[in-house]
């Protein structure tokens, strides 16, 4: 008992040291990216790497706004991401709940079919999806751009896993009280998996935010591209201004990072209040 007040604190120092060492490894490429975004193109390409730029080139960031309709593309990214995340949360929680906790004919086959979507190279979908969107007359439209991304097999799997982990008693009790399955889902089960929904929100946001090939192929006007595709247009085939590309990618990453910082608190808080003890 004598060591108790001291023990945890000393332990925590060890914990901090371990975590800091790991964090340095995780951070380093990111920090270097920041430094390179403030360097000249020659410094970035220099044979002996420059860790610190000779003179901070803030102009690289201004150049991003000169070369790209940055705010316009940012708005497109935000819009399609919000719609997709909301749709994915709605569709994936519903389907995930059914796959986890309901009984119906063909459930196993259907679940396997949904999972199989994750198992083929994603480029397989490019031409067929393009032709479906074309057939619907949506080429070049915002709807066409976001449509296939409304449905997520990964999200369904994630939500199924979350619902599987919940104890059965709550559900049984609500059913005995006469609630219909949707009411059970909505009032009892859904609130319990809020942390997992936050994880889904983070992953689907990132996926939508960074998606490259589909928006590049399906948009017909550069100005209507989301940011991920817009950024890619900065990478020329012959000569690339690397610092500007890096600056642009940092600017594009910032909103997602802020969202994560905000959400990760909610993951924790959500867990604390979810009654999962």
């Amino acid at each position, binding site marked *: 008992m004598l060591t108790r007040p001291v023990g945890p604190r000393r332990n925590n120092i060890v914990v901090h040291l371990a975590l800091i060492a790991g964090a340095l490894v995780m951070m380093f490429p990111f920090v270097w990216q920041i430094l390179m975004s403030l360097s000249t193109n*020659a410094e970035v390409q220099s044979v*002996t790497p420059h860790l610190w730029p000779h003179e901070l080139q803030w102009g690289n960031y201004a150049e991003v706004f000169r070369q790209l309709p940055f705010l316009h593309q940012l708005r497109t990214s935000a819009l399609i991401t919000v719609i997709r995340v909301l749709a994915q949360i709605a569709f994936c929680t519903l389907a995930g709940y059914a796959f986890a906790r309901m009984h119906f004919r063909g459930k196993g086959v259907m679940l396997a079919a949904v999972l199989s979507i994750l198992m083929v190279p994603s480029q397989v979908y490019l031409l067929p999806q393009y032709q479906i969107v074309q057939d619907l007359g949506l080429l070049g439209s915002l709807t066409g751009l976001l449509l296939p991304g409304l449905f997520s097999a990964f999200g369904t799997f994630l939500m199924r896993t979350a619902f599987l982990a919940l104890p059965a008693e709550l559900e049984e009790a609500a059913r005995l009280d006469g609630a219909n399955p949707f009411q059970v889902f909505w009032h009892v089960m859904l609130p319990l998996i809020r942390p997992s929904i936050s994880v889904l929100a983070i992953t689907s946001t990132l996926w939508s935010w960074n998606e490259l090939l589909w928006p590049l192929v399906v948009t017909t006007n550069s100005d209507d591209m989301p940011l991920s595709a817009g950024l890619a247009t900065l990478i020329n085939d012959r000569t690339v201004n690397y610092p500007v590309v890096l600056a642009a990618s940092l600017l594009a990453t910032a909103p997602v990072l802020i969202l994560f910082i905000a959400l990760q608190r909610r993951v924790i808080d959500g867990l604390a209040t979810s009654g999962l003890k």
Partner: protein
Amino acid sequence: MNNNLSRRGILTGALGLGVMITTAACGGGGSDAGAEAADYTEPAADITADLTFSLWDQTQVEALQQNIASFQEKYPNIKVTISVTPFAQYFTKLQTQASSDTLPDLFWMNGPNFQLYAGNGKIAPITGPIEAGVIDPGKYPEALTTLYSLDDVQYGVPKDMDTIGVWVNKAVFEKAKVDLPGEDWTWQEFQSTAEAISKALSKDGIYGGAGGMDGQTTYYNTIFESGGEVIADGKSGYASAQSQQGISFWSDLIASGGSPSYAQLLDTTADQWFVSGKLGMYWGGSWFRSALSGTDIEDSITVLPLPRGARQATVIHGVANLVAANSRNKQAAHTLQAYLSGAQAQQQLGEAGSVIPAYDGTQRTFAESMPDANLQVFLDAVDYAVPLPVSADTAAWNTLETQLLPDAFSGAKPVAEVTADLASQMDAVLAKG
């Protein structure tokens, strides 16, 4: 919901069928499109059209918009929507569009991919505009107009051009106390100069020359200079003794120490060595000029023609603006295509500075953009230039080159063995296509 699902199912099923039918019909569509395009007449100034235009280089959009603005002074009701797709994804997108008959009205095309699209009837010939006198193929480097013709039908003319030269960092020569070679230099002089510099400056990690992995800037040139061929009459040219010499040029350079080792060049590319001031001579395209601006070595640059082998040669390439065969606004698209190929637009493009325009007499701005660097070399090279080697399925044998040739460059296998292997595998691919 079920209803909705099945309706969509039918919809997409029918669609899949539609695609097969239309593309089957396109197989023999090339000649039809040719006959149709021959009726081109210059439209009235009040013609109305919405054109789509696809390209891959963001840095040229500004110049293109200037071009379009002057074009619209005459045709105010032709609107143009520009779509930029980076080169890495450009041809994936173009292929998706071509497979769905949704190609943009006008789009950029390069040599390696041209025959695939032209041969499958995806591109409208410019026979009509040429007959109407709005495009004059005689105004462009001949090597490039042949690049964009197939079976004696002309599909486009180049909008820009690039040739290959040796970029020289004079500071490295001074530091190594090696004399700058003259413009009429030979392979031997190049090799001995590279070796001398590397020897003198090895303690600084500076090299005289560098091999590369890119045919266009390195080994295609030496193959042509030794009198060899990359591809001729639908067969690989790699089996010939001349082509072997063209490859040996690079393996010798690396073996002599005149260049960084093969592995070093993969980690740090030749242009990086050069821009960092660690390389005396870099074989590079005219496009490399823009990569030099703002670097420390910008002021000590000069350019030499490629050193002469059995003959003098350089690879020439250029991008063309082409019109889609199934464009709904073909007349307007050809009109814009012709305008962009003309003297006025080409002059504007040259002044914007990112590329060398292809139209005869509009190139001076490029030569003057680095007055002390003798950029005229790249323009003079047109006289002895050879078009970038291409075929109907260029990519298929390009991958063989990059897969097999490294063993020759690194010295892992004898050059003759590698080129013989490459020739036979390449012939197999060409026979299949």
